[in-house]
């Protein structure tokens, strides 16, 4: 892994996302125990692992929803949440953090759409308030996004009037409205009824084909096999195994990866 850093810049010189020795504890529970991860631009990385292995926490450190206790996270060569000066990391002001976050889209397991706003208002809220786009322009863009996720006729609906799959597709459109360079998905289909999983995965697959850089935490092994460039397997706060889908899913080296795959496949 570290060899990639020393080789001359052939393809993308700096990885899009770079985690080095990331550690995080909640109380006395150590959730992340030194995680290194590189995601190159345009690459889709799928993170697998048993529940409690730290996958979601890892994802949340990348847009600073979770502060790290040690190590560093950087996106596009810029530290997330901190400014480095010498050997110290200074926590950034909220405004700075928010500005950097607009470059990163996050899709939650439970959608977290704003229930009192219409679908269109959900999507335009961030472009208007965080990026100061004119409302009309933001609405125009939002309609295009709704069309892209197959919900062009739902702009005036409220989230509760939609199915889970439709809500998650709106949530994806909402994340895309900031035109982020990186998309993070935290178990995007885990809260959905089985028959609705497909429609959401289709949207994510389209985005992957379009060359968006993504990190997806999921339990959908089939999706990982089909879409991922890299599959990462986590267990007990560490990355245990990393490779192409064929390597990790079909010929896992590590005992724990094998044990996990035998349970979910």
């Amino acid at each position, binding site marked *: 892994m570290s060899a990639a850093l020393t080789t001359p810049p052939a393809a993308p010189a700096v990885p899009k996302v770079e985690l080095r020795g990331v550690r995080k504890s909640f109380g006395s529970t150590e959730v992340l125990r030194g995680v290194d991860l590189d995601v190159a631009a345009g690459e889709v990385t799928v993170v697998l692992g048993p529940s409690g292995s730290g996958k979601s926490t890892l994802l949340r450190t990348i847009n600073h929803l979770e502060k790290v206790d040690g190590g560093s996270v950087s996106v596009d060569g810029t530290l997330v949440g901190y400014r480095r000066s010498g050997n110290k990391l200074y926590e950034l002001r*909220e405004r700075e953090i*928010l500005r950097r976050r607009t470059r990163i889209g996050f899709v939650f397991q439970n959608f*977290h759409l704003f229930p009192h706003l219409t679908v269109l208002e959900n999507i335009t809220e961030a472009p208007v*308030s965080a990026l100061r786009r004119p409302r009309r322009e933001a609405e125009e863009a939002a309609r295009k996004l709704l069309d892209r996720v197959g919900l062009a006729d739902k702009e005036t609906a409220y989230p509760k009037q939609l199915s889970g799959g439709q809500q998650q597709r709106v949530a994806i459109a909402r*994340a895309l409205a*900031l035109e982020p360079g990186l998309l993070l998905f935290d178990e995007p289909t885990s809260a959905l009824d089985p028959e609705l999983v497909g429609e959401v995965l289709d949207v994510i697959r389209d985005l992957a084909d379009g060359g968006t850089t993504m990190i997806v935490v999921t339990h959908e092994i089939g999706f990982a096999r089909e879409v991922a460039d890299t599959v990462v397997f986590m267990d007990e706060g560490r990355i245990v195994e990393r490779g192409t889908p064929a390597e990790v899913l079909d010929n896992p080296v590590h005992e724990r990866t094998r044990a996990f795959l035998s349970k979910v496949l």
Partner: protein
Amino acid sequence: MTLTSDPPVGKTGERPETGAGPGADELTVVAVRRPWRWAAVAATAVVLVQFGHGLVTNPGWEWDVFAQYFASEAILRAVWVTLQLTFHGTVLGFALGVVLAFMRLSASPFLRAVAFGYVWAFRSIPLIVQLLFWFNLAYLYGELSIGIPFGPGFFSFDTVGLVGAMSAAVLGLALHQAAYAAEIVRGGVLSVDGGQLEAAAALGIPRLRRLRRIVLPQAMRSILPNAANEIVSLFKGTSIVSVMAIGELFYQVQVVYGRTGRVVPLLMVATVWYVLLTTALSVVQHYVERHYAKGSTR
């Protein structure tokens, strides 16, 4: 005659106990009879009619006196004072309450403790005691000034002139109200799913905008019923101010019956005004709640 082959039928011609069979679409449902319910309705109706009859026929109500004073100028002016006290008490009380609520929700232990202390103190002191304190403020601080804390003052005011009876009353009501409003607002904010704030933060929405646009509209759903309760009880609670000889509704009514001796009809005047205005408030509440219920139904 074979015993085993006979089908177990009841009386001849009776239909089987299922909805199926010929005539299924003619089946009608007959509700069960509830005779005791009718008895209860009758008994309640008799009591109500008796009460109504008493209101009309008992000369003690003195409806002519009621009519004479109900819309008299002195009473209308008093109603206006009551409304002013309620309005200012509510606006100032809730403004301070919102500040206190966010102090209690802040990350700073000091701000949390101060807000907690405020709520603790003002909920513990009876409103009437507090009002009398404010009324006697000039005794404690003869002069109020704006300037450098513990240093020289730039502007000075005479406390008696600044804190007249009316301002003392508004101040007392508002400070009392703020303690309750703080808890109501805090409860409302806590009732909003944490994921909402997280999603808004992940989208880079600025902090104040997050509160105003995402959290408060959702918090309003649980704030409103409680807030309406508080406003109604403040509205009626303004009658306490009568101890400070402020010409609000209840004080004015007392003045009139002190002069005329017509106690019951004048109490009725106050009662009907309180009921009417509370009803108006409930109507407003209904529409405001409907506004904030947007998106809550499927």
